[in-house]
């Protein structure tokens, strides 16, 4: 199999959140990013954060139909990591010299920008879910994330009938939406 097909196959597995795909990508690329970050004023933890963030960018992209990778995975991850790290250095005002380059890079500014927006939304959702408390959190997760139906939910959470459960779910959802949109609209 040519390298191109191997990588395409790897991306497909990544899109399915396949652990062995993550492992392969880790093995092939982690050292490179580690070197990049640590040689440019970063710590061991920074290297991990940036690498994982770059993988999330790749993962989100690999799930979308429209995405087409025109370079090697390695080049892409390197470019995204480099961009993310530059941004972080700038925001921390530690930025003095341009980040050293020892790999080819491709333009990824747009992808990083999209990622930052999504990451912000992720953070808002996480904090909103953290604030609504139990049993709301579990109830909403059961319905919207684990796709359980109302009968299953009412028996699991001990509601006498599914109307009661629906009522409760509605209240919880409204609270979550309120929390989410309050912050979401604030940011725009």
């Amino acid at each position, binding site marked *: 199999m040519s390298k191109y097909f191997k990588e395409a196959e790897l991306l497909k597995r990544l899109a399915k*959140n396949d652990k062995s795909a993550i492992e392969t990508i880790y093995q092939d690329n982690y050292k490179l990013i580690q070197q990049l970050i640590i040689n440019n004023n970063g710590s061991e933890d920074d290297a991990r954060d940036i690498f*994982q963030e770059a993988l999330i960018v790749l993962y989100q992209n690999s799930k979308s139909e429209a995405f087409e990778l025109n370079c090697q995975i390695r080049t892409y991850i390197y470019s995204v990591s480099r961009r993310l790290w530059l941004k972080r250095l700038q925001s921390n005002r530690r930025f003095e010299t341009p980040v050293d380059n020892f790999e080819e890079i491709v333009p990824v500014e747009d992808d990083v920008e999209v990622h930052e927006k999504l990451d912000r*939304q*992720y953070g808002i959702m996480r904090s909103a879910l*953290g604030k609504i408390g*139990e049993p709301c959190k579990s109830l909403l997760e059961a319905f919207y994330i684990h796709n359980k139906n109302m009968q299953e939910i009412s028996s699991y959470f001990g509601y006498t009938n599914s109307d009661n459960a*629906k009522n409760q779910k509605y209240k919880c959802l409204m609270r979550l939406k309120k929390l989410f949109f309050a912050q979401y609209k604030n940011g725009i």
Partner: protein
Amino acid sequence: MDQILLLDAAERYLRGEMNDQERANFEELRKSNPEVDQFVVEHHFFVEELSRYATVKRFKANLYDVHHTMKESGEISEYQPTEKGRIVQFWEKYRRTIAVAASIAGITALAISGLTLFFSPKAPIKDIEELRRKVNKLEVRTNSQDVQLNDVKKKIDPNASVTFGGTSFLVDPKGYLLTSAHVVANASQIFVQNSKGQDLRAKIIYTDSKRDLAILKIDDEDFHPLSSLPYGFRRTSSDLSEPVFTLGFPKDEIVYGEGYLSAKSGLMGDTMSSQITISANPGNSGGPVLNSNGEVIGILNARQTTAEGVVFAIKSRHILKTIEELKESDTSANIKVPSTSSIRGMERVQQVKKIEDCVFMVKVVL
């Protein structure tokens, strides 16, 4: 009630569970009623957002797992900065000088430590008990039940039993915790539990065994850094009879205790700690001691076994010194210790409510 029906309809519509007749009717309604349309659009966006959150969260968990296992198996390791060649050359050249310098340093260090040992007050070990807590099997079991009930992901390997526990508290909102060194001694894994009962991974970044202090860093993606800490650290010494309070984990739940500063020095005139009269039990080690202004004046570390209610706390001045030492040895540790307390003048109940979130139970797996 109408809203619930609308939500129900919108959900069935978006999930494609409507039959053709219903679908046509609903689409008609969307066209004629802009509010309904707006609701459907918003709901669609929100549900997508929620499911994206869930997938990314699962992906992150996998990332974390992979990183952890690869680190453990040694497939990824700490990066060694380049230019080894130069160091080797240096070594070749100055080997003999270094050997002489090292032996002089060694002899001096031995002499000094011998002298210190000779002159320092000898603490009668049996008189004093360090307050770390042995966790028995029963407590572990109730704990794991709690975790299941709250549907919180349990991170502690069920086969590894938690053997010791103590208390720790934040010195920096980014997740730097302070505890007693004896609480985390010989630990292979450390977890801290927040006030919501959630277990978080933590690692030791600095141990100062002469002051019996250790600094941990929470290393877990579920940890949300706080924006600021409610309490400050007192830089000057405290006064006799000053009322103090503490929070700690002598059991699986946070416990409040009240007392007063009874002496400015610790056991046998030890000036590093102060003596406090308060009720403390195994598990209280590492807990903050605060005065009524909400300033940390020390950290609990031991009690005298031969007397009732006599507890010792390392003074805040020494906590600050340890943190300074850490900063010198590791420049990446960016710890900013707050000096002013934002809970000054509040009722005690309110103060405790604010502080509670910054105090963590330490679980040590040997």
